[in-house]
Each structure stands twice: as structure tokens, then as C-alpha cells.
């Protein structure tokens, strides 16, 4: 991998199992050909907890990450094991602002059994990797793609996610390479 390719910093939050950032890092290197670097873990973002919904507001967490100084990396990705939400939505698997600096992904709803905090199955890890790559591509300006065999196709449910691809279609691939180069 060329040294001038962007560097992505991965930040595990709270009790996120170690395996999750490791799998995501491997996929970032393998599929997007970017450098994945582990940064210091952070505590669960209590400041973002909505006490009525018992969910964590992604807007607040992203704002916190965006304001941080991560000089060694180009983009950062927070990896959590809590239920994330956006005010109008019931939940989100992950979130990133278009062409932003920070993205989030949570393993919480990607498990076969949502409350099973011990077991993180291979399927859940695969899902986490797909969501992470998808959100990362948003950070590089990619939008949702009509092609349902493209990583950037919108997945609204776990079954959509399972059927989705790790790969970008040729058009999104071209766009991505233009953005990172």
C-alpha cells in the first residue's frame, strides 16, 4: 500500500469487543486500500445518552469526534457497542457526514441477538465491516448507489445488509479513487 494513501484512525468506545476494530481495520486495508491505525480507546459517550430513548445520539458523538485533534490520521471512525439513533429515526447502524472527518459504527444492532454482549458472531462482524466501509466512503464524498451489488447501496435492514456487497461498483470505485488520490 502506498504511504500517501489516507490514514484512518479507529477508536473503540467503552466495552466494544477487541475483535470488532481488528476486523474493521483488516477490511479497510483489504477492500479500500487505506491505512487503518488503532487510536486510544474512549469511554462510552454518556454525554450523548438520551435518557428517554435509552439510546445514544450520533449527532453529539460525531460532534465530539470532529472537535478532537487527531493529527496522525486523515479520518476517524468511532466503534461502539451501544444503540445509536438520529432524532427522526428509530436507530442507525452507523453514521457519517458527507465529506466529514468522523464516522461511527455500532455493533449493537448487528448481532443476531441484540442484547447478547458476549458473542459477536462472524455474521455480525461481517455486517460491522460493511457498515464501516460504507460510512467511510461517505467521508470521501460517495453517495448512495442504485446498484444493489455496490457497497454504497443503502441498506435499511439487516437482511439488506447481509445481501449487500463489500465491493464498490465500477462507477463508485472510480469516484472513490479520485477522492482519495
Amino acid at each position, binding site marked *: 500500500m502506498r504511504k500517501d494513501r489516507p490514514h484512518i484512525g479507529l477508536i473503540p468506545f467503552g466495552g466494544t469487543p477487541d475483535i470488532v476494530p481488528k476486523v474493521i481495520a483488516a477490511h479497510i486495508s483489504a477492500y479500500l486500500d487505506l491505512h487503518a491505525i488503532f487510536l486510544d480507546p474512549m469511554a462510552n459517550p454518556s454525554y450523548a445518552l438520551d435518557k428517554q430513548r435509552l439510546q445514544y445520539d450520533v449527532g453529539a458523538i460525531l460532534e465530539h469526534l470532529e472537535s478532537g485533534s487527531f493529527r496522525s490520521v486523515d479520518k476517524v471512525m468511532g466503534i461502539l457497542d451501544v444503540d445509536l439513533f438520529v*432524532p427522526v*429515526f*428509530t*436507530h442507525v447502524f452507523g453514521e457519517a457526514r458527507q465529506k466529514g472527518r468522523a464516522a461511527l459504527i455500532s455493533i449493537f444492532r448487528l448481532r443476531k441477538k441484540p442484547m447478547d454482549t458476549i458473542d459477536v458472531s462472524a455474521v455480525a462482524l461481517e455486517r460491522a465491516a460493511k457498515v464501516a466501509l460504507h460510512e467511510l466512503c461517505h467521508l470521501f464524498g460517495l453517495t448512495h448507489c442504485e446498484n444493489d451489488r455496490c457497497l454504497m447501496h443503502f441498506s435499511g435492514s439487516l437482511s439488506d445488509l447481509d445481501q449487500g456487497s463489500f465491493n464498490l461498483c465500477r462507477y463508485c470505485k472510480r469516484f472513490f479513487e479520485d477522492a482519495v488520490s
Partner: protein
Amino acid sequence: MDEKMSVMVVDDEKIVRESLFFWFEKAGYTVDTAASGFEALEKIETYPFDIMFVDIKMPGMDGIQLLERIKTDYPDTAVIIITAYGSIESAIHAMKAGASDYLLKPFKPKYLSLVMEKIMQQRRLRSEYNYLKARLEKISRFDNIIGQSPPMIKIFELIPEIAASDASVLLTGETGTGKELVAKAIHAKSTRSQHPFIAINCGSIPDTLLESELFGHKKGSFTGATHTRKGYFEVVTGGTLFLDEIGEISPKMQIDLLRVLEEKTITRVGSSESIPIEFRLVSATRKNLQEAISSGTFREDFYYRVNVIHLHIPPLRDRKKDIPLLVQHFLKKYSQETAKHVDHVTQNTLTRLKQYPWPGNVRELENAIERAVVLSKSRTLRSEDFSFLSTDAPRKKTPSLREVEQQYILEVLDGCEWNITQAAKILGINRVTLHKKIDRDGLRNLKR
């Protein structure tokens, strides 16, 4: 995505606006937000949005009021109402008011994606519908004549039949009904279409000039005739001569024209040489020629010569069904010409336009649309944009200069008990001129 659709999110809560803004941005849509119904209306006036997500509860103008305004003024914009759990009744109310769908917040991200898919499908269906409608519109048009009312369809059917013959045609109808367009269509559909179509408004040319225009003149035949000139009868050879306002032609000229039609030859002014000519005559008048014959101002033999085929173009007030089609046509025309994106007319406006009597017919409607488009500050023409059309009292037909002159001369003559010398003195013209005017306009027949 088939096309880049534009979305506006209208919500007084900043966090909701932002959430949806980011989602749509990631989905590749052009997206904007508004914090109130008023701000949304301001924005949509300057930029057309395909879809609006509107929160039902907002201070000032609520979501339902905004929905109603949008559906009236921008019927092509799809409105999705966002409402909280527990206010399902208002969501139903919104659907009845024309919302395309509603979302109960918080909703699953998947639902938003499904709503967008549904809207896109509706748009695809609408564009198919518009395509078919445009094809249908072509059927409603005949060589720039627009109409779908039974009398116009009848005219469309008759034009090719009339074009196939060589008989003289008399078109009657009020001013602005499109008589010249019909004459052009007859010419275009005929075997003469490769030859000239010449239109002359007989009412606007003085008698002596008309003679020279039609018959041509020989060099030196009158002052100013510095060279020999071909008249329209010669120029039009093989084509169609359209004489508009034929009811205004003087009795002397009627005799000359009658001779031309019978003998198919002409003699230029100042010449004795006969020149053979060949053309088709289409005439038009807004006058009642039967009445003119009765009053002696129009020759009966000339009438029968020009009126072999008679086609009456109905006034716009008798074919109100055509008004929406005409409005759309002129709107498109003047939006393009003026480069202003005025492409909608509210239902209220159409109702107002249908109620107006249109004494100037299609021409008046065209002028009204042009004026409204030029002065409009929004994309939609509203009823108030046509406030210059007064429906209180039907407007009287504006008389021509000649009609005013005739009326005045008649009044003076009646006032002087037809003492020509006295009347000429009052009118400030000499007796010979007054006699000429009396003869020309057949005023003796109107003596009270």
C-alpha cells in the same frame, strides 16, 4: 437514482432538519431546509423542489396549511407529512389534503428509503402520463391552431377536406379567433403549399393603395409610381391569397375583384395589358355580410363568389373547454420567450379565466398570459395576476377609425338634415370629399 431529485425539509426543530439533511445529502439528493412554512414558500418560489418533507406541527403556518398552499400552487411537488406518534388523525387529514405519504417519527431509516422509492415510481408514472398527454396534445393541435372542443375538432377535420378543393373560402368569426391561422392551415395542407401565401388586411389599406397593391402598376401611372411593380395577384400565382376584413372593401373594389375572380386575368394600374393569374382565394371577415348586403355596402354577387365554402370560427367564450389548453400553450411560449420560469396556473386562476367573456378571443387571452408572465414574480400565475381583466361589465367592441368617422359624418348629416354644404363646413372637408365618403360607406342607406 434515475435523476437528481430536489428535496426540502421543513421543520421548526433544527435537529430534525439536520438529521434529514444529512441523510438526503448522503443519498445524493439536492437538499435544502426551511424552519417554517413561510420560509419554505419563499424558497420554493425561487427554486422548484420535487419533494417536501413537512412537519405537521409548526408555529405560524402549520404543516397542513403549508401542504394546502403547495398543492394549490405547485401541484407537481410531492409532500410527505412528518408527524409524531399519537397524531395519526392529523396524518389522515394530511393524506386527504393531498399529501403523498406520511411518516410517524421516529421511523426506521428503511421507511424513508421506501417512501423515496414510492415517490420516484410516482414520478416515473407521471412522466409517462405527461408524455402520453403531450402526444394527445399534438392531436389537439392543427398547424398551430389549438383546441379540443367539439367545434374546433370539427374545424380540424374540415381543413384537409377544404384544402383538397380549389373553391373560394370565406372564414367568419370575431376578431382574434384565429381566422388567419385557419387560412394558413388550409394553404399548408393544399397542393399549393409550395407556392406563396399572401395575407392582406383590406381594412388597413386605403382603397386606392389597395388597388395598386393587388393589381400592381405601370411606371408613371400615378405620382410616385417610379417603376413598374407587380401586384399581389401576380406574386401569389399558384398560391393562396388571404384577404382579411373583406367586409371593409369598397363597392368599387368589390366589382374589380369580382371581375378578377370571374376572368382570372388582371390589368395593372395604368396598363391595358391583360395578365393571366391563378390563385386560391381565402377571405375573412368579422362583419355580418348578410346585413352588409341588406344595407347595400356589400355586393351580393361578390358575396356568393367569395363564399363558396363557409367556415365559422367560434368565439372563445363558446369553447371554454379549450382555455386550459391554450393557457398552457401560451404559458410555455412566453416562459421560453421571457426566460422566466412561470410554469403553473392555479385552479382558481383557470376558473377566473374560464369565466371571463374574452371579447378579444384567443388574441386577448394570449396578450393576457404574456402580460401576466412578464409581471409575475413567482413560478405560478394566480388569480390576482389577472386583476386587469374586469368581468364587471362586458367590454364594448372597440370601433375602427372608419366606423367612428362614419358614425360622426352620419350624426353631422342628420343634424343638418342632409344639407351637404352645411355638413361639409362643419366637418371641415369639401363637398366633393363628403359625397365620396357618403358613397363609399353607403351612408344614404343609414339616413335616419
